[in-house]
């Protein structure tokens, strides 16, 4: 255990930046209430934990709730981490997995709409949909640096390729339609709000949304088909 007199600070006497410290040291620091160490651990693993929860739950909002719960559990119970039991990301993954299962139970054990079954350990995720997106993800993925000790395969998904493909798919949509998608998805505006913002009739917003979605489905569908064909 670390000294209880360790000061609450984002830097250390050794001069190594907090962002470069190993996980175990950061956990020891946040046991002492070091918010900077906590922030570094968030930035280091939030994305991979979010993706795991999203794959299990198939719902962005629920996945973000699980992510929040997981990090608050880390803050509240960091002293329970024992490096001999495994890595920090492994511990966080276990917490996130349990929180995801809680959400599924609250939903009546309903299978996730897009359960990528091979990546999930939960028995609740019955893969009735036989979703092949998982295969596409795995086919195109390489291990992400810094999480090589992750206990779950989904932690090793590198989403760089997917981001590039999504960016490419969005760039391929004509400007007026892309604007609708951008405002709706990234700006989280309703169709009525978009209509007000752009001074377009609501019907025009709806039509352009449908066209944009059709193009996205086609582009990302091709991406999946290409991934399948590359195996």
């Amino acid at each position, binding site marked *: 255990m670390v000294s209880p007199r360790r000061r609450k600070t984002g830097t250390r006497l050794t001069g190594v930046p907090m962002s470069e410290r190993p996980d175990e040291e950061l956990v020891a620091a946040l046991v002492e209430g070091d918010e900077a160490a906590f922030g570094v651990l*968030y930035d280091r693993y939030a994305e991979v934990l979010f993706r795991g929860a999203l794959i299990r739950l198939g719902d962005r909002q629920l*996945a973000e709730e699980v*992510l929040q719960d997981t990090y608050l559990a880390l803050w509240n119970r960091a002293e329970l981490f*024992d490096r001999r*039991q495994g890595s920090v990301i492994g511990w966080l993954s276990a917490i996130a997995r349990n929180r995801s299962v809680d959400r599924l139970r609250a939903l009546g054990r309903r299978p996730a709409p897009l359960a990528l079954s091979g990546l999930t*350990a939960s028995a609740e995720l019955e893969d009735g949909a036989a979703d092949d997106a998982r295969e596409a993800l795995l086919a195109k993925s390489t291990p992400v640096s810094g999480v090589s000790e992750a206990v779950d395969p989904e932690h090793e998904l590198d989403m760089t390729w*997917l981001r590039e493909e999504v960016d490419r798919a969005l760039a391929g949509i004509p400007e007026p339609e892309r604007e609708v998608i951008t405002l709706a998805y990234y700006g989280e505006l309703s169709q009525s709000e978009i209509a007000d913002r752009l001074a377009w009739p609501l019907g025009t917003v709806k039509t352009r949304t*449908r066209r944009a979605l059709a193009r996205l489905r086609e582009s990302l*569908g091709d991406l999946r088909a290409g991934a399948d064909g590359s195996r």
Partner: protein
Amino acid sequence: MDHADIRAWLDESFFTPAALEADEPTAQAIREHLASCPDCSAHAAALRRTALMLDLARGPSPQVRDRVMATVRRVGRPARVEATVGQSSPRWAGLRLAAAVLVVGIVSASLGVFLGQAMRPADDGQRLASAVEMMSSLAARPSTHEMVLRDGAGNAGGIALMSVESHEVAIFTSGLAALTGGEEYHCYLEHEGEREWIGLMRQAGGIAFWAGHMEESMTAAPDDQLVIAADDDAPAMLSGRF
């Protein structure tokens, strides 16, 4: 609504996926249609895949980080409890040794009664011997999680050892009240009030025990409890927290 209407509704609900789960007549009608229409169901599935790809590529919203950090700043440094999981302090090492000695003593005594009365099939005797062996093996590993199982009044009534790596668990209890009507005790992993069944407790003389491997999918997290109860809804007769 015809197929075109259904698909238009699905498209318009793309950014509000919870709309399909809503408890209102339109959503209900859409769900019923999707259950019986492969083409529209495929359209809905394609939309969900598209949404998943967008969400995976986007990652969590920055607002989540803001909320988490704001909460941390608001609550401040939590009151830390003594770590009881996997910490091989001298106290726990002593407890482990004492528990092993105690259990072996109880088991030995019970085994005599148990075998002498020949109340159970022979394979239960083998289970008991295997359980003692697993207990001894777990007790020798420094990474083993240990817990004392207590009743509602805080009285110690058993001990459990668990390995996170191997998922092995060994549980021994004594003094459990006899059950009637064919009921038997079970052990569960309890997480935030939800119990996952581990196994049926075996009886031998005055002790009840279970030893074996938990399901791979079962993972003990901080605050989880090991619970001994008559069924998954019954009050815990004994429990211990990881």
